């Protein structure tokens, strides 16, 4: 009996925390379905309203929402695919082959993880200007097409999950280096690829500072920058703002919901093993 009460108390606290974490989403939906006047009164309205269509219309009238969404999708999808390919290929090479300079290259890779992004931001903007990429989505995709974290993380995975004999057997069967990568390494790394893919996609979708700097054309933005522009120009129309926020959030929550388990497993594993 005592244990039962303890269990109930435990879940009561855990559910309370869950409600706190979920509350902003619920409140966002409530705000998005009401008018600002309904929300901003005392006591506030806590139920869903019928103003969602109006709010969506206002968002679409004030920012090029679908264009920004399209830009964000292009950037996030291409960054993710490039990162998955380049990172897994490099990780496989580090994990399963020996060649001169391997350790030095790997240490260099680890060292780059310590460097904060701001350290490069100013000259990087100048580089983009020289390349003619200022205002273009290339400026967001290309610099992030391969990264140290992904290579480090995938390397750990390849070391533990692929036996050397398997790689050797594939080589003896006449699989070249790329063949072994494609037919042996990639299929066995699906869970790791799922994690790295979602991690990269989420990061790219939510990226804010660099797009804010480099996307200088106000008609050609990503969702996050467009949203912040909407906030700057309509700072009091919270119902419309939250509708925009909701519309920008939904695709991401869907992607996360599909891969949630693998993602959480991947995100927490690294800390314990490292």
């Amino acid at each position, binding site marked *: 009996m005592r244990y039962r009460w303890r*269990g109930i108390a435990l879940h009561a606290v*855990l559910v309370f925390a869950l409600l706190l974490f*979920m509350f902003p989403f619920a409140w966002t939906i409530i705000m998005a379905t009401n008018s600002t006047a309904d929300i901003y009164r005392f006591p506030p309205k806590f139920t869903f309203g019928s103003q969602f269509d109006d709010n969506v219309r206002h968002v679409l009238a004030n920012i090029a929402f679908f264009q920004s969404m399209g830009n964000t999708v292009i950037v996030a999808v291409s960054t993710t695919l490039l990162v998955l390919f380049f990172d897994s290929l490099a990780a496989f090479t580090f994990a399963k082959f*020996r060649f001169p300079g391997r350790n030095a290259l790997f*240490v260099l890779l680890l060292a780059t993880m310590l460097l904060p992004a*701001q350290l490069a931001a100013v000259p990087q903007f100048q580089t983009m200007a020289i390349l003619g990429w200022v205002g273009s989505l290339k400026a967001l995709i290309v610099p992030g097409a391969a990264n140290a974290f992904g290579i480090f993380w995938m390397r750990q995975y390849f070391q533990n999950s692929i036996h050397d004999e398997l790689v050797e057997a594939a080589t003896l069967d006449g699989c070249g280096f790329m063949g072994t990568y494609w037919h042996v390494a990639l299929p066995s790394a699906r869970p790791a690829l799922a994690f790295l893919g979602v991690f990269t996609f989420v990061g790219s979708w939510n990226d804010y500072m660099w797009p804010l700097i480099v996307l200088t054309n106000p008609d050609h933005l990503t969702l996050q920058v467009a949203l912040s522009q909407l906030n700057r120009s309509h700072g009091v129309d919270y119902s419309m703002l939250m509708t925009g926020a909701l519309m920008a959030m939904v695709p991401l929550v869907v992607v996360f919901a599909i891969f949630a388990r693998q993602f959480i497993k991947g*995100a927490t594993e690294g800390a314990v093993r490292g």
Partner: protein
Amino acid sequence: MPATSAEPLTGSSAGQRRGRRVWSYWRFYLALSPFYILFAVFGLYPMLSTIVLAFQRWDGLSPRRFTGLDNFRFLVEDPTFWLALKNTLVLFFMSTIPTLSIALVLAVMLQSAVRFTNVYRIAYFIPNVTSLVAMAIFFSSVFSTNFGLVNAALRSLGIPEQDWLGEPWGIKIAISTMIVWGWVGYNTLIYLAGLQAIPKEQYEAAKVDGAGPVRTFFSITLPQLRPIVLFTVVISTIGGLQTFTEPQVMVGNSGGTGQSGMTIVLYFYRAAFLDNDYGFAAAIALSIFALVLLFTAINWRIFRVRGDAS
């Protein structure tokens, strides 16, 4: 270093290979090249030119001029720099201490919960993958002076309403609330993974010795968890020292009333991309880097040196 492991690797033995020329490994170097080429062009080169730029004066248009240590002297003499530094540290402590303490408590509770653990884990994690801009807008509405949710709650309790986003401490409370909300879940799951890795026998032995739950927590759980705590502190430090989106969206480029939301990265952003004072911004960037290194080293010392050799 993990790369020096002595495990047998594919291919012929090292002796056979030693004689070959380096370029016979071209496939491997080609496979690694994308990262290193991108790093050289978009990482190393800009970082090196940041170092040079920090000793120059440049607005992006007129020719660069070497000015020696001027940028650093202006930096040290600028009260806004010290204010931004102070704000960043205050925000770091105001958000990291509650985040990590709540996360540890939730992790311990989640470990003893048997049912619904996956539901909790997913729900706790979602804030961490949510757009910072969207959530910054959400939290500015919650803390807004006129009829924001927080003020509505205060009013129903008979407490006078506060001008949260127009008052220095209010701004800091709003920003740290948002950071805590975003990061508790992530850290909870990290701690949970760490707790589950502690061998069960240790707890049984403690039970046999008659140790209560509190004693067990402080003499087994916490010491075993130390590497994990170090990891979360380092992650929080690196993230906390680079706080930008929250204040920039919530109180704008100015940093809000009394520049109370002016963080060091927002200060950098303003100098570089609003004032086009590139040399000065480069000096700020170097100081941010130094700060990150300093704090990482401090964390390392606190958590490693005091422990045993493991």
